[in-house]
């Protein structure tokens, strides 16, 4: 290896097809680089990140005795790893390379080629000066804890957990609600195949419960996360259900026994379309099949005075425990998969659609419950007054594609609206009117599904609904009056005012209300709309910027079940790759103390968020534990005697960069 002695820098600039070369004069930059002190070789190449591009570097190192490399191309966040690898293959320490970002920060954001070229030259000059100060570094390794945490038990979380468990990994699945299943558990059938949701979901749910490698904690939430990749300590709060899961056999006799003979309180799972008792399971196939007691309404919990018929019937099974308290449990895992899903747009926010005002205006999720055979009406589509509707309007894009609400297309609404059209027509023979802006049927079998529903005679009207109002002033004789759905039929250029018995609002998908808190807790980022941000949309779609934390399902963005499951598989694979490697290599960008210079003032010690700095009482100097240090560099910048330094971000490196940027050669 030739890292000492005379500095011999190799410089490479990438065309990236026309991505860079179309704006920046790469020849000029290469020629300029060749003129800089220390540069002994300067090349341009169409695609530096391709194999031949990388080989070029490795070969030049060997043949030309290069000992520092500068690559001007895309963002180091994308390809730093690639070029470090190339340098290593050339026989040089991988940390002797530095990248210059002339694509994301250059050709893609500037229109004036001349100015973009000047900027590139400035950056190259800075990099050439900086790389001189690079020294060989070694990566340290930390072992990876083999267990995985999956947060959220919708279809995505379920699939990820089962995949990992099948690979022999121990998984803890934490679900906030009393049962796993997520939104899919609420559906009757699923597009595009129209297969029964319960038939495909229930077996997976029971498999979760049965799998020896999965610990299922429902009615639980993560409250704190510490540590980092390979070694997270996670605190989970288990809310009291007042029934011991280990003793309950799931006979549900207690629910029948409850002093409330009928349901009295809004049933969350049915979105308030039915009533439940203070002791309940959210739905018949719930997993675990253990009831929950709702402390807001349970007479025993509220007053202490109840006949406790439930407890009596439970008898020797002895599963009741009214003294249960929230429990906080710490677990250690090496990786985390977030699968917290989505919530639907609140239709009340668009007042002119009359949700919450007219009793016959429903959301799609409510409609899903109505068409569900195990739903509040046993699968009958009926209005609140008990009649079956003769006409139904389905309004697409509610809250989506709208600058005043959510800008994005929610991706699944067109297809689920067609699904509902089909199901309701099948159940009621009603006339169905789907009002859409654009019919989005991308994806396997979706266009075919669209064809099928069109052929069934559903009226498809191209126009966004502009107004919904009652046909007559007041509902007569207790009947719920029809409402008029008004829109421009843009294909015939007429305003249509269609009176219907029932309206279904196809509400869009949006981030969970607490997505921001969850994001903070796991130290990841969100995209502009608030969904969790993937590391790279194409190259790392289930990774986050925090190593060891992966994304699956609709928490990353609106998607359908097939995509959610595919993504869950990918997230599980990423976690497996991490665990099976057994260790992670840490970026050697840790801070270290120059002992001779440390004055022992201790001011750095409280600055470190990871308590990596301690005070060596024997020598009265600070010392840094490299394993704990995450490399933020805060202590480095704060040390009054400048005696803390940071690998890869040495003062000398940064000062030479500043100097390089501002001094014209």
């Amino acid at each position, binding site marked *: 290896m030739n890292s000492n002695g005379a500095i011999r820098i190799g410089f490479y600039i990438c065309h990236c097809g026309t991505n860079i070369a179309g704006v920046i004069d790469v020849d000029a930059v290469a020629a300029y680089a060749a003129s800089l002190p220390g540069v002994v070789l300067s090349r341009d190449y169409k695609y530096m990140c391709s194999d031949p591009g990388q080989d070029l570097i490795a070969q030049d190192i060997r043949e030309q005795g290069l000992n520092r490399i500068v690559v001007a191309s895309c963002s180091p966040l994308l390809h730093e790893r690639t070029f470090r690898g190339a340098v290593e293959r050339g026989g040089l320490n991988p940390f002797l390379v530095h990248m210059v970002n002339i694509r994301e920060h250059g050709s893609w954001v500037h229109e004036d080629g001349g100015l973009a070229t000047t900027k590139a030259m400035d950056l190259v000059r800075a990099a050439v000066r900086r790389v001189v100060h690079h020294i060989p570094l070694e990566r340290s390794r930390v072992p990876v804890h083999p267990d995985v945490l999956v947060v959220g038990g919708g279809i995505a979380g379920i699939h990820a957990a089962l995949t990992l468990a099948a690979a022999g990994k121990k998984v803890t699945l934490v679900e906030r609600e009393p049962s796993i299943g997520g939104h899919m558990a609420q559906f009757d059938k699923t597009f595009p195949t129209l297969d029964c949701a319960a038939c495909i979901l229930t077996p997976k749910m029971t498999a979760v419960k049965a799998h020896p490698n999965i610990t299922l904690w429902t009615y639980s939430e993560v409250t704190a996360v510490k540590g980092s990749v390979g070694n997270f300590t996670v605190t989970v709060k288990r809310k009291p259900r007042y029934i011991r899961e280990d003793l309950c056999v799931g006979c549900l006799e207690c629910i029948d026994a409850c002093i409330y003979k009928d349901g009295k309180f809004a049933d969350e799972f049915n979105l308030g379309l039915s009533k439940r008792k203070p002791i309940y399971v959210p739905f018949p196939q719930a997993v675990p099949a253990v009831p929950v007691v709702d402390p807001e309404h349970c007479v025993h919990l509220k007053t202490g005075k109840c006949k406790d018929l439930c407890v009596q019937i439970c008898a020797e099974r002895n599963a009741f425990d009214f003294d249960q308290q929230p429990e906080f449990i710490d677990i250690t895992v090496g990786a985390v998969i977030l699968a917290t899903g989505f919530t639907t747009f609140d239709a009340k926010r668009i007042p002119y659609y009359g949700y919450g005002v007219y009793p016959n205006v429903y959301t799609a999720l409510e409609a899903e419950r109505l068409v569900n055979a195990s739903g509040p009406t046993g699968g009958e589509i009926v209005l609140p007054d008990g009649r079956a509707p003769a006409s139904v309007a389905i309004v697409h894009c509610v809250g989506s594609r709208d600058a005043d609400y959510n800008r994005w297309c929610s991706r699944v609404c067109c297809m689920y609206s067609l699904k509902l059209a089909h199901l309701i027509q099948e159940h009621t023979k009603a006339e169905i009117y789907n009002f859409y802006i654009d019919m989005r049927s991308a994806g396997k079998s979706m266009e075919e599904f669209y064809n099928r529903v069109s052929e069934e005679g559903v009226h498809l009207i191209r126009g966004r609904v502009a107004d919904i109002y009652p046909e007559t002033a007041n509902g007569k004789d207790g009947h719920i009056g029809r409402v008029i759905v008004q829109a421009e039929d843009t294909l015939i250029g007429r305003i249509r005012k269609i009176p219907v018995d029932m309206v279904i609002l196809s509400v869009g998908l949006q981030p969970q209300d607490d997505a921001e808190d969850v994001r903070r807790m796991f130290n990841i980022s969100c995209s*502009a709309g608030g969904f969790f941000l993937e590391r790279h949309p194409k190259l790392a779609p289930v990774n986050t*910027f*925090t190593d060891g934390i992966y994304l699956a399902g609709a928490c990353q963005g609106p998607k359908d079940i097939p995509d959610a499951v595919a993504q869950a598989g990918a997230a599980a694979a990423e976690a497996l790759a991490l665990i099976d490697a057994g260790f992670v290599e840490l970026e050697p960008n840790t801070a270290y103390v120059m002992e001779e210079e440390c004055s022992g003032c201790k001011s750095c010690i409280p*600055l470190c*968020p990871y308590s990596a700095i301690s005070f060596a009482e024997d020598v009265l100097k600070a010392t840094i534990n490299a394993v704990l240090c995450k490399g933020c560099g805060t202590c480095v910048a704060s040390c009054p005697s400048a005696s803390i330094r940071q690998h890869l*971000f040495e003062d000398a490196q940064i000062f030479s960069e500043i100097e390089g940027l501002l001094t014209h050669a």
Partner: protein
Amino acid sequence: MDPHAQASADWRPRIVAFFCNWCTYTAADLAGVSRLKYAPNTRVIRVMCSGRIDPQFVLDAFTRGADGVLIGGCHPGDCHYSEGNMKLLRRVHLLRRLLGDMGIDEQRLRLEWISAAEGEKVKTVVNDMVATLQKLGPLAFPERAAAWDLEMDEFERALAPAAALEEVTHG
């Protein structure tokens, strides 16, 4: 020749930017991926966290001829290392005072919290800062510093006999 010595018609402000790896640098990448267009006046130096930014970096940039320094970090509460950005904020407050004493307009040092999703904000902040600096004109700190050095030299020369005397008395 230093092309920045006078405010000629084609003078363009030079901005040295320090962006943290996790939020603002990523946001700048996002601006690129989204093909947003902004002024080509910034030169970004990547640090892992805005907490790494030493006031010396900023001063050095000004003394070497930067017309402005832009610091970008994660929003409060969002720092990848929990609160490096808050540590930086404290430093920036002190630094502002110092810059004021040095006659450097406070608008020349700008601190912005830009999250990884805010590519658009990179664009608006850079454009806005360029417009501000365009109005303020060149800082030309190296020239000023050279003038100060001259002054100091003369001052020292004037003091020299006295100092020599002092030495004599001491000795």
